[in-house]
Every structure is written in C-alpha cells, then in structure tokens.
C-alpha cells in the first residue's frame, strides 16, 4: 500500500540499506522466520542508497554520527567531526592517566575504550519517563508519559550538548567540556544525571494526572 511520505525523493517502497558485513555472512539455517521473510522482501524491493555518513568500516558508529550531527552548526560537519574526535581522544587520555596512576588491583576496573564510555554515559543519561503538556478544561497539566527509544536517545544527547554549551566557562574548549561531562555521566554523577533525576521526580509528583493520557 502506498502511503504518502512527506517529500521523500524515494518511492515509499524503497527499503533501508543494511551495511554491516556480519549480517550477510550468516548461513541460512541460523535465521529465524522473520529474518527469512525480511530477506525475501529485500530480494524483491529496491533499496535506498547508503548515506555518506554510513559505512561498513569499524570506525563508523551510528550513535556517534547522530551526536556529531546534533553538535553541528550551520552545516559545518568538518568542525563537528574534528570536535568529536578530539573529545574521544581527551577521554582516552584522561582514562590512561588514571590507569597508570591506579594501584595494581584497580587497574582492571578502569575502562579505557572511549566508545564504551560514550555509549554507557548516554545510556545512564536517558530518562525512562517524560512529561507532556495536555490541556483539559482550560488548564494545561504536565502528564507523565512513556518515551520511545528514539526520544530517550535524543533527550540524552540534547541535554549533554546544551549542558556543555551553556553552563561552562566561556574560555574552555568544547572537547574538554564534553569529555568531562561524559566521564561524569559514565560514573552516574554530574549535572545531566541530576537533570534526569529531576525529571523523574516531577513525573512521580504528577502521578495523579497519568490517567489524562489517552494513547
């Protein structure tokens, strides 16, 4: 069935491309029913072109690309990408410093991989429940509402970036500020985690209005 898509240059029957090499090397027996159907569908339908930010190399990560796009201003992807790589480098440096200073028994607990730290920090920042404005009888109430995965990720990334842009000293560089925030979020400390807890408390306080939600 053809659904009107808002101004996509592609025909709605085009499917998303699958870039990871591993998914093509699985033998037929290991696939579940749904995956088999998906495969058959892909063999018949046309597929969209892979966007320039997506690649099958080990270095391209969809979350990092999303975060870089959110940091970008006026289409300056080069600057955003360099800031991101400098942030990851700064995280690695700080963690290595800590690693070399720590005593033998604690060396294994220190995480040095900046990608792991980034993903874990994002996960720790994601709120579970959000608030939405619902107008009933003339008054607008803040109603607690479950959030989708995309929305959670978006909020976590947005909070990190706004926190770094606004609440820090003007002269510090973005990679420095970001690496500091990410390390704090990795350890469940810091202003972003506080903001998440504040949101959760507000949602708990407005529990009474939860029945206003109709979806």
């Amino acid at each position, binding site marked *: *069935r*053809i659904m*009107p*898509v*808002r*101004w*996509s*240059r*592609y*025909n*709605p029957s085009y499917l998303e*491309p*699958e*870039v990871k*090499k591993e998914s*093509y090397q699985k033998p037929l027996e290991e696939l579940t029913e749904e995956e088999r*159907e998906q495969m*058959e*569908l*892909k*063999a*018949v*339908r*046309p*597929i*969209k*072109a*892979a966007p*320039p*930010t*997506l*690649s*099958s*190399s080990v*270095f*391209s990560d969809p979350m990092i690309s999303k975060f870089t796009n959110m940091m970008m201003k006026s289409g300056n*992807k*080069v600057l955003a*990408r360099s800031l991101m790589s400098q942030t990851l480098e700064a995280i690695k440096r700080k963690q290595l410093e800590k690693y070399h200073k720590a005593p033998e028994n604690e060396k294994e607990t220190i995480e040095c991989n900046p990608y792991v730290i980034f993903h874990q920090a994002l996960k720790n920042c994601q709120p579970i429940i959000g608030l939405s404005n619902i107008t009933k009888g003339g008054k607008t109430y803040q109603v607690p509402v479950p959030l989708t995965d995309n929305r959670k990720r978006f909020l976590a990334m947005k909070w990190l970036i706004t926190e770094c842009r606004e609440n820090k000293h003007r002269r510090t560089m973005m990679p420095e500020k970001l690496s500091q925030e990410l390390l704090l979020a990795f350890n469940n400390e810091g202003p972003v985690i506080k903001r998440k807890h504040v949101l959760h408390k507000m949602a708990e306080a407005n529990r009474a209005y939860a029945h206003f939600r109709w979806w």
Partner: protein
Amino acid sequence: LRLICTTTTVQKKNVGASGPEKYTEAFIKKQIEEFNLGKRHLANMMGEDPETFTQEDIDRAIAYLFPSGLFDKQARPMMKHPTEVFPEQRKIQWGEDGRPFHFLFYTGKQSYYSLMHETYERFLNVQKHQDQLIAKDLPLQKEKRNLAGSRWLTKIELEEMLLEKLSDDDYLRFIQLLQKLVALPCADIEENYIQKFSKEVPVQLQKVVIEPLQYDERGVAFSTGEGKRKTARATAVVYDNGTGKITVNGTDILHYFPVLQDREQLLFPFQFLGRIGKHDMVCTVSGGGRSAQAGAIRLASAKALRSFVTEKEVEFMRQAGLLTVDPRVKERKKPGQEGSRRKFTWKKR
C-alpha cells in the same frame, strides 16, 4: 502531504467512476459494430487481410492516412475499440417502478459495502473451517503465501473494479480486512478470491548486465564504472593485482580529499567486499561539491567492482545500498518563500 514518486498506475485518472450514465447499452453496441465494419474497410484500403488486422496495424494505418503534427498525442486522430474510448459506466440501478435492485443501494456505496460483506463472510467461513479442523485435532495448514512478490490493488484500481468512488479510509479498511484474512492459517481455501485483489510485482532485480573484465596491454584485468551524485559525475577504472593506490584527477586521494569522511566513502565498497589492498583505482570526477564527488566516485567504483565479484556478492552490495543512484538533489526555491522551505518573516502588521 503530496506523493512525489508515484507509479503510473497511481497517476491514471479514473473517469468511469464519476458522473451519471451517458451512454446506453444499445448505443455502445452500435459503436462496436461500426468499429468492426470500419476495421474491415480500413484493412481493404491498406491491402491487408481483414481477418488478421490487429490494433497496432490500425494505429499505423491511421497515422499514415491522417498525418498530424499536433503535439498532444491524445488530440491526434485515433481509432480505438469503443470499450477503450467510452469508459465503463454503471447502468441504471433501479427498475421502472423506481425500486433499486441492490439492497444496499441507499448506503451510497453499494458495491463497496457488498464487497466488505462478502470478504467478511469468507473470513468467517475460514474461521469455521479452522474450528472444525481443531475439533477433529487435525493439523492446520502452515504454507505461507509468498508476500514478497505481490502487492494489493491500489485505490484507483479498486475504484475501477467497483465503478464507484472510494475514500482513503474505505480503501484502508478493505486492505486491513484482506490482510486479516490472509493472516489466518487456513486462508488457502479462499486463495481464488484473494488473487482477485493482488497483483504480481515485477521482479525488482531487472537483471542488469554485468560487463566482462577487459585486459590492457600489460595483461592486467580492469573494468570501468560511472557514477553520479547531485551534480557530480565520475568515472572510475579499477585495476586488478594492485597495491590499493587510488588516484583522483591525477592527484592522490590524501591530497584531493583532506576530510576523513570522504576517504571513508571511497574505501567503503572495497572494505565491504574485503578487497582493500588488492585493487588500484584511477578516477576522474567533475562538478558538485566535496561530498557529492566522493559519493559519485563511490557509486562508480561499486559498479566497476561488479565485474570482479560473484553474483551473490553483487546482490549483497545492492542490499547495502552501494549500487543505487542517490536521487536527492537540491530542492528548488519557491516564489513567496525565502528558500525551499523557509518562509519570509511573519509580521503582524
């Protein structure tokens, strides 16, 4: 909400479903007789056999006898069978006493509602059959219909079938009912009925001809490919037995593409196939910007690599999105707006 990319079936306008009846049956019959007579006369005039005179022959004969320089093909003289010229219309739905024939006439959309009733009846039928099988403890048939190769009728095709206007909601409900019917395990009983509403999608692969490898003077195998993205056009020549060197417009990629993202895009097809150090590439590119040129070269190299690789891997490349031309281009600026989307600043007074 506007459909930008549509197939021709969606764009055809449905003339038959609207308007009151204009042509009586007798009139159309007379037209058919006249058409057949005229066909025989035309065959005689052209000196061909009247029995085996096909529609294509008629079109050619008319184009020869009445040459017309008009641009609009629909305005030129044509001689077609009356069923094509006069669209199918509904006969009068009520008898001489004014009583309608169909019991659902006063709903306004009698054929749509009768179709829904019939489909639901068959749905209940299948459920009853299923219950009977369960009562006898027989296994339910689990042969899944191949959904990938077929599509449901579009709204316009359904309107033509029912000779009645439908709304989007009506169409959606009908498709949902059909999907529910197909989802039942014993739906094979009603296979004939379902086939009336589904169409075969032509196999997408369109067997693109993969060119064989060419050999140059030194005996090294090579192959060429062309690619484009936005306004950039690129041609790539991929040589075998190479060291992984890539040259663009005479300069090395490290000098031509200082940004890491572009170089990653160039290496994407090679990395996907696992052939990074095995091929040499020489490309020429013009037009577009930095990212567009990288995308164009990526497409060109992927097309060139098809000749070096098995068919299965070509299919994997297609599913990874390496072989499709990216249709996204800069959207035009519209009058009354500042850019393609941005409107002028709204001033209250």
